[in-house]
């Protein structure tokens, strides 16, 4: 996670960029966007299961940055934690508005990643597993989904996740433990039903 006060190779730190953004510096705002848009987008996409919802959330998060940059206090949290917090708020609102989890749009880049593999069966199997995992994550209660997305899929530390979610580090640990157990169960059920389906298909073919 990027340190809010760090300056590397002459680059401005996040807090400097936020100060400049608050003063109306468009270039600073653009740099902030380029640094952080991907993590916000991925978080929102994994939380909602929808590309279009994630795009909306990215826009809303950076509108907040644009308007409230002056309120950001680097002493309280790293900018990434702050952005995750804002993204989480807008994700919750979006999910509450939609009232249901939307199916994944299906435009995943894992096709590009695995298309070169020789073993087609293994590729399909892996892709299937990823789809099952995505569905399982989307079916988790929101508080467990948040920790899985942040800690396991976005590589956010426990401390930063606690800052983003506004809870204690111990809560993050316990939620993560519970979330992984739930995921294991769900994935086990999904695998079992998939095996049943394959067995039935084979029986039909015979």
């Amino acid at each position: 996670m990027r340190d809010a006060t760090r300056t590397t190779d002459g680059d401005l730190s996040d807090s400097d960029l936020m100060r400049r953004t608050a003063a109306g510096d468009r270039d600073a705002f653009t740099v902030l966007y380029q640094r952080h848009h991907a993590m916000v987008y991925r978080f929102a996409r994994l939380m909602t299961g929808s590309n279009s919802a994630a795009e909306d959330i990215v826009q809303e998060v950076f509108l907040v940055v644009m308007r409230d940059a002056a309120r950001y206090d680097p002493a309280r949290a790293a900018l990434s934690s702050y952005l995750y917090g804002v993204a989480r708020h807008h994700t919750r609102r979006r999910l509450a508005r939609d009232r249901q989890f939307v199916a994944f749009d299906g435009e995943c880049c894992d096709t590009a990643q695995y298309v070169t593999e020789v073993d087609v069966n293994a590729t399909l199997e892996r892709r299937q597993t990823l789809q099952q995992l995505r569905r399982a994550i989307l079916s988790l209660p929101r508080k467990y989904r948040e920790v899985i997305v942040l800690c396991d899929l976005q590589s956010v530390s426990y401390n930063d996740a606690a800052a983003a979610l506004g809870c204690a580090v111990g809560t993050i640990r316990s939620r993560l433990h519970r979330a992984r157990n739930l995921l294991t169960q769900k994935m086990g059920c999904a695998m079992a039903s998939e095996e049943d389906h394959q067995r039935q298909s084979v029986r039909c073919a015979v």
Partner: protein
Amino acid sequence: MTSIRHEDYGLADALEALRRAEACIETPPHVEAAVLAAWDEEHAHRTASRPRSLWRNAAAVAAAITIAIGLAQLGQQLQRTTQRAPERSEDSRTLLLVGEPILQGEPVRMVRMRVPAATLTGLGVRAVTGTPGEHVDVDVIVGEDGVARAIRVGR
């Protein structure tokens, strides 16, 4: 990446694969365009609103000056009229005629104002009694053309 227990090895593998798959996902470029367009719109609005507020302030100052001049003229008229003779109405209020007389059947409007008693005393309205700090209700009768015709002062 946070540590995952050994017994969750299958899940850890799957999560790691999903993490790698997600890591190469980028926000579509049109989102950046929309965000920057929002920035430009917001800041163009802010810049444009500055001259507008200057005009608003100028208009407010002009209105205040007009009202002050109008009140001063009204005060002078009032002083001249009261030096002649205040008319007493039946309900023991003083009716001060200022400017043009009210024509029969002329539609008028009445505007109620609260002014310090000292101000009216200074204008020579003897009907007003009370301490100088006290406020008195005054009815200003305004003609159809917007010009004050009379002022009625209560006791």
